[in-house]
Each structure stands twice: as C-alpha cells, then as structure tokens.
C-alpha cells in the first residue's frame, strides 16, 4: 500500500470513528465523547490534508482536476467546516451528520480512478484551477453543513415538519448510501447493471423504505421527548450563518471560473449547462438571503421564517448536488472533462 493511500484510509477511519463517537455523545450526553469525536475529525482532516498535499507534489499540479480529486477536497472542506462550527457553536446532532457527509464523500471518491491523470490543455492553468475549485468547494461544504443543520433543526420541530424532515433525511441517507453500495458493487462486478423498469421499482422501494425509516425516526424522537429549542436557537441562526459564509465563496467561485473561461476560450460566459446550473444554485441562495426582505408577502410570517429558511437550505443543497453530479451525468457540456 502506498504512503498516500495510508493517509486516505486513516482519514476514512477517523471520520467513521467521529460519526460513531458523536452518536455515543448524543446518547450519553457525556462531554468527553464530544471532545474525542472532534479530535477524530481533526486527525482525519490533517491526514486528508497530507493526502491532498502529497498528491499535489507527486502529480506536479493542483489535485483538483477530476471527480476523485474534487470529492476528496469536498470531504476535507466539510470536515474543516464541521470542526469550526462545533468549536464555535457546539450545536446538537450536527457533528455526526456532517462527519457522515465527509465520510460518504471519501467513500464516493473511492469509486473513481485514483490515477493522477495528466491534464488536458484547457485545465493546465494552476492558478485559476486552484482558485475556481477551492472557492466552489468551500462554498459547497458550507452549504452541506447548512443542510445538516437545517435537517436537525426541522427534526426538532413538532408535527408535520418533523415528519417531512424525517422523510427527507431518511430519503437522502438512503439515496447516498444506496448509490454508494450500487457504485461499489458495479465497480467490483458483484451487482448487475440496473436499468429501465428495475430502476423505477428500486426508486419506489427506496421511497417505501425511507417512509418506514422516517416513521421509526419520528417514533424515537417523540419517545425521547426531543423538542425545539425555540426559533432563535443556535440551529436556526447556524442555518443562515453557514449559508452567509458559503455565499461569497460561491460568488467568487463562479467569478473565477468565468475569468478562467475568458483566459482559455475568450468568453466569460457561454451558457454551458454546468455554468448555468451554478448560476441557478447561486440564484437559489440569493433568494434565501433576500427572503427576510419579502415582508411576509411570500406568505411567510416572521415567526415561521426560520422554518422556511431551513426548508430552503435543504432544497438549496439539492441544487448543489445536481450542479456537481447531476449535470455531469444527465446534461452534457464543457465540464464533462471533470470525470
């Protein structure tokens, strides 16, 4: 096993440990476990940073040029954001979710080819490649953490909101884990290729299982007497703060991409599907930031604004995921070389 792989694996194990120890902390309420979990996250992040740095030196180019490399950086950015959020705000139940996302991003990275491929001519611009990818993925990580905070916030609400949130959370975990299992199975030739009607049946089954899981989750939350800490709770503020942190990064990420496109192709905007979807995502978060000025006109009263924002944050992250993955597989365009 090469030295770089050791760093990668150490990070994976550390994130898994962080998820488990955070879970133990939530169950036991003993603060020592939280410190241990954060230490695992820090250790994982350091190991992963070594991995990224090593790859940079070995490949003699910034390691941000394909799906494998961006997923690894995405995971690192999520871990760092999660550590900062934990240390500054210590919100309940966010650490486990965010660590799980960091772990899943690493696991997904495993599906792709590890080889340090030489770059095609358009990508050979270290300055713009680094700026563009780093800015975009730091923003994606902030939005990912906001998504986790929003789902925890909504799970703590009463009635329909709790049920809807439980269903969305179950569905996204099932989708992410299911996709990973399928990807790994396909990679090792264990699972046959699924298509046509089977896909529809699988999706339908996914919805049913998510429904059952969410019912169980709601039952557990009800039984444990989990309650909202009020609309002005840490969670409610964090949903907005993480987005406010990520938004400038996304803005500058799109701008650096645009300047780079002008340097390489002589056009700063070409309505390429990836470009357009990054703009759509930007518009969604711009909408999020302007909602408070709507003055109740959207039918959202001041007191339900936090819930509305949490829902918007969850929807916003789906747009991020589509811009990142969906566009590559479902729409064609210039960024197809990212695979």
């Amino acid at each position, binding site marked *: 096993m090469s030295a770089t792989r050791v760093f990668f694996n150490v990070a994976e194990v550390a994130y898994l440990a962080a998820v488990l120890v955070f879970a133990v902390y939530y169950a036991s309420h003993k603060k020592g476990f939280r410190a241990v979990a954060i230490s695992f996250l820090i250790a994982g992040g350091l190991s992963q940073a070594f991995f990224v740095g090593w790859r940079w030196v070995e490949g003699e180019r910034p390691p941000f040029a394909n799906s494998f490399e961006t997923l690894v950086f995405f995971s690192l950015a999520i871990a760092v954001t999660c550590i900062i959020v934990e240390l500054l705000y210590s919100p309940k139940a966010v650490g486990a979710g965010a660590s799980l996302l960091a772990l899943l991003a690493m696991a997904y990275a495993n599906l792709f080819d590890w080889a340090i491929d030489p770059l095609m001519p358009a990508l050979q611009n270290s300055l713009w490649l680094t700026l563009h990818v780093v800015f975009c993925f730091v923003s994606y990580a902030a939005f990912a953490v906001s998504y986790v905070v929003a789902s925890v916030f909504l799970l703590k609400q009463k009635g329909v909101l709790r049920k809807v949130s439980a269903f969305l959370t179950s569905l996204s975990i099932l989708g992410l884990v299911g996709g990973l299992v399928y990807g790994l199975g396909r990679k090792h030739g264990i699972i046959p290729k699924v298509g046509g009607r089977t896909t529809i049946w699988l999706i339908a089954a996914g919805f049913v299982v998510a429904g059952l899981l969410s019912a169980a989750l709601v039952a557990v939350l009800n039984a444990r007497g989990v309650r909202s800490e009020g609309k002005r709770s840490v969670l409610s503020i964090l949903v907005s703060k993480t987005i406010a942190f990520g938004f400038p990064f996304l*803005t500058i990420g799109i701008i650096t991409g645009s300047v780079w496109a002008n340097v390489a192709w002589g056009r*700063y905007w070409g309505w390429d599907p990836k470009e357009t979807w990054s703009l759509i995502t930007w518009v969604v978060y711009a*909408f999020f930031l302007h909602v*408070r000025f709507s*003055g109740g006109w959207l039918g959202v009263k001041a007191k339900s604004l936090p819930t509305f924002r949490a829902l918007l944050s969850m929807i916003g992250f789906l747009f991020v995921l589509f811009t990142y993955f969906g*566009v590559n597989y479902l729409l064609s365009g210039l960024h197809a070389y990212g695979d």
Partner: protein
Amino acid sequence: MSWRSKRREDLVNVQTSKKISAGRKLLKLLSSVKLAISLLAVIAVVLIVATVIRNQTQARRYIYHSWWFISLLGLFCLNLALCTAGRWSFRVRKVGTTVTHAGVLVMVIGVVIGAVSGERGYMQLYIGHSGNTCYSDSEKISLPFTVHLRDFKVERYRNRGVHERLVIRVVDPDFIGAFPLEVGKRFRIADTSYFVTILRYEPDFVVLGEGTYGSRSDTPNNPAVQVQLENGSQNSEHWVFANFPGMHQDPDSNVQVFYQRIEKIKDFKSKVQLFEAGKVVASKTIEVNRPLRYKGYTIYQSSYDPEHELFSVFDVARDPGVRFVYLGFLIISAGVMFTFYLRPLLVKRGGAPDSTKQNQE
C-alpha cells in the same frame, strides 16, 4: 374664477394626481424587492428548462439569446438599479449590499457594451498560410492585421494517461464494442458465439525469427497485442497493431479486431506572427490558456485538424466591455466579502442589531 373654470381646474388636478399615483405605483413596483424575488424565481425556472433542452444550440436560440429572455434579464437589471438607487446608503449596515448591487450593474454594462460593439469569429489557417478574415455565424470580420501561422504542433503525453482498448467489430450479428486490454483475459463478444483471449503484449514489436516475436525496447514505439479468436471449434491467432490498424486484418472476415491507443493531448502550439503594412508587429506561440492580444483583439487557440494536424483554428474576439465586466466582478467580490465577513464584526462592535429581524417594507 367662475365655478365652471374652477371645476375644470379641479378635474385637471385630479387627473394629474391620478397620473402621478399611477407612475409612482409603477416606480414602486419596479423598485420593489417583491419584484426582484419574483424575477429571481422566474429566471431560475427558465434556466432549469433551458438546460434540460438536449440541443444546446436550440437552447441558445430559443431561450438564452431570445428577445424575451434578454428582456426578462433587462427588467431584472432595471429593478436592481431602482432598488439600489432607492435604498443606497454608505452606513456600515448597508454599504455592502449597495456595493454588491452596483457591482452587478457595472458587470451588466460591460456585458451590454460587449454585445453591442464586440466582435467574435473563428479563423482557420494551414501551416505557412496567412489570413485576415474571421467568420462568425452571420458575418465576415476583417482584421486590421494579418495573421501568419508559421508552425503548428500537437504535443502528446507519451506514457502518461494513455487510453488503450480493444475495439471489436462483428458484421453478423451487427456489433461494435470496446473491451479493456488485459493480457490473459478471455471474454465473449456480446451475444455472439465468439470468444476473444488476449495472449500477449509487446510494447515495441519486432520479428526475431520465423514464428518468434519480441520487443526491441520497453518504450511503446510499436505496441502490439496477440489475440486468439474462438468460434466453436474454429480457432485463430493473430497480431494487431496500434500504429497499423489495417495490418493482418482480413476485410472479408466476420470479426475484426483493432488495438486502439489514444495518447492524451498535452498541448497545442501555434507559432504565429502578426503583420501590419508588411511589418511584423507581434509574434507568439499561442496555446490554450495563453492567447495573443493585439490592438484590442485577442486570438485564442480553439481547434485543430485532428486527422493530419496541418491546420489550426483560432477564435478571435474583440470585447471592449470585458474590462467593465471584470471591474463588476471586483466590486461584487468586495461587496459580498464586506457584507458577509466584515459587516457582522463591525456591526457587533457597534452594538449588535438583530440580523434576523424581519425588514418590513
């Protein structure tokens, strides 16, 4: 004043105030955040629809470059301009928003200047040839200088990132497909009765003697693989070459095997000189990410002759608006950073107002 004239005056006053109130209402609507939010939502939906259209040329024609979409964006800009003009403030709490919105407007001014007075076309030049005309979809652009292509080279990564595979074509039943190149692997060709096994690989194939083969070196100068083809009891073995795809192929055979080896392109290098009044005024090796700029025109490496590598294609653009677009980018970046990173610190220090307070209009 008679009662009649008084009445007429009253009537005029009422009509003017009605006009004013209608004008004010329109202005109020045009400068409202409600309109901004609605337009953002509509633009997002239109963009989603546009990206779903498979044919992106059609998406450009019917959506991105259509009069109604441009009008929609125009309306949004008008709204943004009025919003900013009506609410501008240089107080710490609002200056970031004012600057960001102003940045968007500066950027839009740049885009409009580019669209109105910019030019863009492509130019195809064979090695050793010159030209001063570019072509766009609708017009011919004459450049104030002549471009001469002295030399053009495609550089490839020799041993890194090489994509190798076995491409197999079957006539009956009709099939064409690619298979990974793994020595020792035996696989069936789709639903046919044929089986293929890759027996051997030689990077620099050479005939050593009768029936004996080997490699001259480890460098892939003449890569070849030996494949075995089985069809029931029939069995044949032959060599296929990456550099000579037609060698040892029987054109009448039902199955043809090709060894495809694609070396990744590292760079395109077009050595060009620009002439004006018979004199060389600029010379440069143009590469992707390294365009040549002269007199407001920028010449980009855009495409090439993939078969014989005898010509190079350039995109030539003149966009006087781009400096405003970049200025807009700078202002937007400064604005968002101030709003989201600096302002919270400054406002907190000055006695924190509630950031999540609903701002009633």
